[in-house]
């Protein structure tokens, strides 16, 4: 049963991950990435990593991919222009891909990874709290890394604002506090002067 579910999910995961880089429409690519994240969350649950799996859905599917979709849907990307440089960038791209595959093979290879190194997790009872276990080590043993995460998040806030914030030039936005403070003399200038008679004035028609 568990194995069947695992194979179903991993098939979907591999296929959707492949679809991310092969489909032409970027919106569909982003949606396949959503599917890939979702199925990997399901596989993490099979590994009894409940908290991480739900956080994956919450943060990656519920937040990061929403931004991706925003960008992809609203940037109005012209696909033909994007494809023009394909041949020129191919060698560099291939090189990067080969390096990444080699790194992956080194880490996930049989020397460091495998059922003998990482056996299937022991099944836990219903009252086992994965979240509690994480909490007990995250804020004690890994406290420094945890506080560093806060610093990184602040850097992200500053960077995001620096990159995207532009003051809008022409807006008709109302500022109620300024409107309330306006006195009549700011808007109207009352000028007092004596009545004058124009020299060239003609006599009234008679």
């Amino acid at each position: 049963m568990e194995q069947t579910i695992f194979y179903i999910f991993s098939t979907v995961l591999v296929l959707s991950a492949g679809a991310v880089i092969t489909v032409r429409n970027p919106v569909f690519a982003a949606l396949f990435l959503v599917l890939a994240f979702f199925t990997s969350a399901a596989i993490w649950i099979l590994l009894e990593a409940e908290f991480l799996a739900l956080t994956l859905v919450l943060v990656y599917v519920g937040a990061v991919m929403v931004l991706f979709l925003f960008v992809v849907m609203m940037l109005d990307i012209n696909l033909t222009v994007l494809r023009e440089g394909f041949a020129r960038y191919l060698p560099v791209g291939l090189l990067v891909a080969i390096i990444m595959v080699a790194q992956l093979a080194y880490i996930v290879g049989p020397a460091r990874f495998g059922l003998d190194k990482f056996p299937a997790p022991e099944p836990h009872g219903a009252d086992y709290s994965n979240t509690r276990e994480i909490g007990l080590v995250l804020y004690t043993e890994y406290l420094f890394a945890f506080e560093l995460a806060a610093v990184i998040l602040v850097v992200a806030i500053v960077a995001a604002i620096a990159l995207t914030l532009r003051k809008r030039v022409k807006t008709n936005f109302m500022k109620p506090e300024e409107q309330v403070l306006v006195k009549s003399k700011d808007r109207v200038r009352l000028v007092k002067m004596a009545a004058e008679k124009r020299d060239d004035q003609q006599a009234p028609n008679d």
Partner: protein
Amino acid sequence: MLEAIQSALSFLPDGLVTLLIILLKIFALLLPLLGAVAYLTLAERKVIGYIQIRIGPNRVGPRGLLQPIADAVKLLFKETILPTNANLFLFILGPILTIGPAMAAWAVVPFDDGLVIADIDASLLYILAMTSLGVYGIIIAGWASNSKYAFLGALRSAAQIVSYEIAMGFALVGVLLAAGSLNLGEIVTAQQGSVVQWFMWPLLPLFLIYFISGLAETNRAPFDVAEGESEIVAGFHVEYSAMTFSVFFLAEYANIILISLLTSAMFLGGWLSPFEGILPESMLTGGALGLLLGSGIHWLLLKTAFFMFLFLWIRATYPRYRYDQIMRLGWKVFIPITIVWLLVVAAMVVGNVGPWFD
């Protein structure tokens, strides 16, 4: 009762029996939920009607009681319009992705002690994750329609939903602090004792912020700029008709009920009786009176109904917020208040401040 069904089905293979029982439980939850959604629409029209000194629908059936059924049948026989400019696959996918998570979130909702379909440890996190998926349906529907109004509505709605999700998440952290558990059932039992123990007292600001964020998350008045019929006709679902539209509608109302139920479970003691600690123990446990006054599912439903009524009352009372006001409320008011109050609650938990955390 479940054992009886299980033994009656014993001639089937084990796995199939488990599956059938799960399906049975799910239908026992979803069918009443659908009924509740249908009659919430009638209640909405009636309540708003009376608030505006009208009678509301009263033609179909006695006092208009069959109105939701007539509406459903009508919608079922309407034409499903598939706009030429739309991306057909995504156009259909939008409503499906809206209702899927809205329904699936109900899997972990407890109705009474132990009366829950999937009793997982991280049930609150699961609900937060599921509700955060709802925004996909809206973005996809708005984009796939290829219509300006739909697109504008989807953008507004998505930005609003994500903004209020933060305040909502912080409020949930406060509940976790108070209960010391992620499991909804345990959160309710942590409020046992008396009315004073209910989390609405130590978490009062978070309680209000959670409910108001709930209004914004479900795109309800006064935060309904995503639909804003006077500005952008109907927002993201302007191109939808017949059943594709009803599916959006169904999801929205199921979410309203879910938010109401969660608010009463997390802040008002869920199925716990308000008479706990006031009336003598014997009156709460024995006999017919005990069934009525003691803790039970009826209290949860009553509290939920109260919050559902609040949704309608607020809709009939307040004018729509302006978009910049909505964003300001979410980011500049709610988030600072929740952060400060979280630290207050944490200090109370660490300092064992009574009567809640001793």
